[in-house]
Structures are given as structure tokens and as C-alpha cells.
């Protein structure tokens, strides 16, 4: 027969271990070393790297991108810097949204006019969103409902006292604390400064690279379920007007190499299940899927390197020419 022994039994039955005391010589030696230890800690303390201790004021590449002066506006010396670990301190609850959208870093600068007696009249937030599409998504989510287009950066929207724009992977938000301040000039200056950054050049235009289908009349970002299709996420949609007045909608959706096959399978399975004809043709080097869609009308999808391009229009001569020119441009 076995008996379970509980911790309480052990405590009750076991005698306490004998108390050990260090010899006097050892204790004296430790006491003598104490001042040396204190001196060492003091010396190390004087050699610290401030950026390791104060993560808000560290010297990241982002801080260097914000101009010190724009017209009469003077940047305040202290920049606040936030990373993933402390973004919540600034956006107070909305951090998860930014993190989910690809957030990497944020620098906040305040700009003061000579007439600003109390607080600075302008705050500039510079978000590094990692990639242009993420920056564009945040721009549209934050400003799309009420903002009117403004010609700053790769895409810009202006509110009553604010401007949001993107440049490459950066999303920039300018907020003024008084009416009628000419903040567009600051936005332009910040945009120019960003152009000197390591990441900005060239990349942003990729998000908006579409064939020349006409005059651009609208651009929007759709985070998920584009046109009700669960498999199309993070879509940039553009509306074009042709010379004859026809409006064409086109979209591009990012497709990573590892998801290419799976996505195409989902796409084809969906339309097969719908009983919708999908015909594949080749135009020069382009592979074009033409979809005879009873709900969307005839449209086409062009799988390209890194993204898919969709055009809600039948394949006519103009469109064929625009697609081939687009492919040639690479």
C-alpha cells in the first residue's frame, strides 16, 4: 500500500536545516570591496547612452527628416518619438489599429510661430508605416470621409485645420491649433525633406502605378472584402475618365509570391462555383483573365509580379494598348 505524501506532511515532519554563517574574514573582504563597487557603478552611470534610457528622445533616422524651420515656423527643440512598445502613450487606445496596419515608428514635432505666445500652433506627426500601401490605408481611413484632395506628396487630403499626406512609407499628419494658418506650405516643406529620406524615393509611386486609362477622378483604399470578395484585401481602387466621358474602375491588390498560387485558386474556384466564364488570353507577355460576370459586367484581371491588376471594362483596343504600355514600363 502506498501513501501520498503532501507538502504539509513534509513541512510537519522535516526538521529545519541548520543555519550557516559566513566566516568573519569573508565578511570583512566583502565590506572592503563595497566602495569599489559603488565607484564602478558611478563611472558606468556617467558613460550611459541617453537613447537607451529615453526612448522618446532618441536619435532615429525619422527625427532628422523633419525640417527645423519652415517660413516663420520654428521647430521646438524636443521631438517626441514613439515605437511599437509605447505608441499607446500618444494615440491612446488606437495603437492596435496602427500596429495592425504595419506601424514602425512615429516622431511628433511641434512648430511655433513668433506670434505663438502659449502653445505652438502646429503639430506634425510623422508615421513610418513600413510600406506605401499601409501609409495610404491609414491616410484614407483617417481623412477619407471628410478630407478634400490637396496636392501634397503622393496623395494628400485636407481637413478644416489639418492636412494628411503620404510620401513613400510615411504618413504625415499636420494639425493646426488656429484657423486660417497656411499649413500647406509646411506640408510641402515636410514632403521635400522626406524626399531625402532613405526609404521615400520611388516606392510610393508603385502603389499608384496603373495603366494610363484616362484622367484620374478618384482614388480610394479598401481594407477588406473588396466588392464583397473575401479573398481580395488591401485594395487600391482608381477611377479614370476616358476622353469620351466613360468612367473606368481599376484596382490593384498586393499579392506576395507565397500567396500567389493559393489566391488564384480561390479566385478561380469562386467564379467556377458561380458558373461564371473565366477565359485566359495572352497579349504579348501579359496573361489576361477575362471574366464574363453577370453582376459586375465583363471585366479583366491581369496577374503581375507582386500584384494583380483588375479593370472593370471589356478588353477593347484602347485598354489592350494601355495594358501593353504599362507592362513595357515595368
Amino acid at each position: 500500500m502506498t501513501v501520498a505524501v503532501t507538502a504539509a506532511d513534509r513541512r510537519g515532519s522535516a526538521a529545519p536545516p541548520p543555519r550557516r554563517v559566513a566566516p568573519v574574514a569573508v565578511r570583512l573582504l566583502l565590506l572592503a570591496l563595497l566602495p569599489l563597487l559603488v565607484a564602478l557603478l558611478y563611472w558606468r552611470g556617467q558613460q550611459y547612452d541617453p537613447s537607451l534610457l529615453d526612448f522618446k528622445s532618441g536619435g532615429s533616422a525619422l527625427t532628422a527628416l523633419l525640417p527645423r524651420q519652415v517660413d516663420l515656423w520654428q521647430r521646438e527643440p524636443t521631438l517626441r518619438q514613439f515605437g511599437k512598445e509605447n505608441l499607446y502613450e500618444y494615440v491612446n487606445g488606437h495603437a492596435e489599429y496602427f500596429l495592425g496596419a504595419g506601424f514602425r515608428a512615429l516622431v511628433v514635432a511641434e512648430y511655433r510661430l513668433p506670434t505663438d505666445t502659449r502653445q505652438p500652433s502646429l503639430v506634425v506627426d510623422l508615421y513610418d508605416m513600413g510600406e506605401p500601401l499601409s501609409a495610404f490605408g491609414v491616410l484614407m481611413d483617417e481623412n477619407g470621409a471628410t478630407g478634400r484632395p490637396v496636392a501634397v506628396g503622393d496623395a494628400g487630403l485636407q481637413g478644416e485645420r489639418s492636412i494628411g499626406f503620404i510620401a513613400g512609407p510615411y504618413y504625415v499628419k499636420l494639425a493646426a491649433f488656429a484657423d486660417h494658418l497656411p499649413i500647406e506650405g509646411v506640408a510641402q516643406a515636410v514632403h521635400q525633406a522626406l524626399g531625402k529620406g532613405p526609404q521615400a524615393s520611388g516606392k510610393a509611386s508603385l502603389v499608384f502605378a496603373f495603366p494610363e486609362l484616362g484622367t484620374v477622378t478618384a482614388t480610394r483604399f479598401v481594407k477588406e472584402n473588396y466588392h464583397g470578395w473575401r479573398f481580395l484585401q488591401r485594395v487600391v481602387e482608381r477611377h479614370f475618365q476616358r476622353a469620351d466621358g466613360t468612367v473606368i474602375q481599376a484596382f490593384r491588390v498586393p499579392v506576395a509570391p507565397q500567396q500567389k498560387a493559393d489566391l488564384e485558386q480561390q479566385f478561380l474556384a469562386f467564379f467556377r462555383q458561380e458558373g461564371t466564364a473565366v477565359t485566359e488570353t495572352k497579349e504579348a507577355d501579359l496573361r489576361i483573365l477575362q471574366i464574363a460576370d453577370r453582376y459586375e459586367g465583363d471585366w479583366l484581371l491581369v496577374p503581375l509580379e507582386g500584384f494583380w491588376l483588375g479593370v472593370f471594362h471589356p478588353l477593347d483596343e484602347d485598354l489592350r494598348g494601355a495594358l501593353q504600355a504599362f507592362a513595357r514600363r515595368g
Partner: protein
Amino acid sequence: MRRRQFLQSSMVMAAGAALPGLAGARESAPGSNQPAEKPQVKSYRKLGKTGISMGDISFGAGKLPSAAMILRAIDQGMNYFDTAPDYGNSETLIGEALTRFKQRDKIHIASKYCQPAPYPGHLSAGSAKADYIAAVEGTLQRLHTDYLDVVFVHAIGEKGSLEEERRRLLDDNMLAATEELKKAGKVRHLAVSSHGPNNLEPLLTAAVTSGHYDLVMTAFNFMKFPKLPDLIQTAAARGVGVIAMKTLAGAKESNAEVGGAVFEHAAFRWVLKHSQVAGLVVTIKTVDDLNLYLQASGTLFTAADQRALDQYAALHGQSYCRTGCGDCMTACPQGVDIANILRYQMYFEDYGDEKRAMQSYAALPRSAAPCLDCPAPTCTQACEHGLPVAGKLQAAHRTLTFAPVA
């Protein structure tokens, strides 16, 4: 299916077949695989005395992704579409669909007395008659149609004051505008909707008994509505139509089989077992939603459904803020708009409608900011369903605010 329902169903399907290119596309499908049979609306019910027979499961266009979704829904037998000027570009997309679907008289469109602004854009009590008329004119323009089947006074009970909301409900200018719009053939029926959180039952009862309203749309689900059965019976007795919304009780499960039944189907069938309810309106965002929801059309509530709902209630009963309950509304001495804040939090978390939730929260006169350091929260004790209200309000404020910390 009764013969009349079958005939109505056939009529709408025939209308769907009239979409340009629709039949041809099917026949020309490269045919190895037969297309899957799509779920259809299988039951249509009378909506009070309006003369409308609506599909038991109808289209909520609050997050409409494309015009094509409307055409797809028509093709699957849907004939009632609920939209609003403050539902993004929903009206414009429906208008786009109407330019292709020429048989306007085969479908019913309901919109709201609202401005095309971020939600909520409702016209408040005391708005000029011209404002109400202009709101409908704007809607008609966006919809590319010359009449609305139904216009709603929307979301009554959103404000705390019963008197203020009663004024909005029976506003003379609104009633005069409606009369004028009806005479001009631009509006056919007047309706009111409410998802609470304040005075849902007294306000809808006032609407039903006022004689001005042709139908009401109310939040209605299996979780808790003690007096709503009385209300819908009164409405039925007076020939006022009843439509249900917020039927998924927070939609905390999606396409999940709970207790032997698909949760959405169980929740819909519970609502539709009430014969006074003509139909329910549910937000449809994807083709998958449409196909999933329509599988419940025309089917009967079962014991397995009840088990599913019981299980859902057990799982989420202490986190779901009952729409239309409002027990906590007077509990906060600071006047924090508890139920609306928790509703917006639900939009953010459960519906994935983050932007709308944050915009609506920003528009509230009193946020949950004081809850962050509330010394003596009285709201939690006020909730008879045991929700940790104080904690939920703090979480909601953190989720829904974008303003930088000062």
C-alpha cells in the same frame, strides 16, 4: 412553401433574370463544372398595410461593398434594401445598381431622414420642413430613382431625453414634409427605427399608436426584450408593419456551429418565428454573408436552434450589452452615455466597423473619459445582466479614441 409565397418568389427571380447578360453568362460558362445552387429567399411576408411583401431575410446596406452585391441579392430573391445617406456611399452604389436593374417596381428601397455625413447624420427635432425634403431629394438623386418606398426617422432613442426624442418622432415639420413628399409621389411610407438604448419601447409604442407611421424597425433578438412582444402585437393589430434588426445579438460568433445549429440561422429563425415580424434586415458585407444568411430563409425554428442560442447566451451573456435594454442609462452621475458607447464598441470589435465606431464616438457629447479615473463606479451594479460595465467603458474609451494624450 405556400403557393402565394412561391409565386412571389418566382416573380422576384424572374426580375433577377432580366439583368442584362445574366442568362447568357450562365449558359456560356465553360462548362465542366456545374455552378453551385445559390441560396434563395424562400418566404415573403406582408409588411403591415403597406402592400409590400418583403423577403423574410432582407438586405442591410450599411457596409455595401459594391453595386454588384445588390444585383446579386436581387438575383437571389431579395427585394427589400435598407440604406441611408450616412452609410458611406451605400446610396450611390444602389443607384448604380438601379441603372442596370431596370425593374424598379420589383424591389423596395428604404432610406432615412439623414444628411450624407459620417454616421449619425439624423435630422434633429426642429429641423426645417425644407431640410427633410432636401434630405429625400438628395437620396433620390444618389439612388437614380424618383421615389422611395419607405423613409425612416432613424435611430429614435439614441438621445437620453424621452421628450426630445418624442419631439423628433412627431415633429410637425417632418410630418408636413412627409405629407408633401407622399403627395408628390416621392415617398410612399413613413417609418421609424430604434436600437435604443433609451426608451425604445415607449417611443416605438408612441409611433405605432400615433397613426402617422406605416411601419417600425426595431432591434429584436433572443437576448432580452421584455415588452417588445406586446409592441409587435399592438403594431400587428393596427396594421403597422414590423421589421427586425440587430438580430445577431452582437454577432460574436460567425458561421459557427453552436449546439448543433449554425448560430446565424438559429438567431434568424428565432426572430422569424414571431409571425408579426415581416422580415429582418441584416448587414451584408460579402458574397459569403449573403449565401450563409439566405440558407435560413423560409425555415422553421428547431430545438437545435434553441440549444445554439442557449449556448451563445451562456458564452457571451456577460459581455453582450443588450440592445434596447438601457437599464444603466441613469446610473452615471456624470451622464456618460453608457449604452451608446458600448454599442459603438460593439461596432468596432464585433462588426469590424472601426472607422464608423470611432467617428460616432467622437460625436457623442459626453465620452467615457471620466470613467478612466472614476472613484465610485455605480454603473456596474446597475446592469442586471452582470456586465462589468465600468471596465467595459474604460476599454471602450481606449479603443475608440484617437485624440493624442495631452
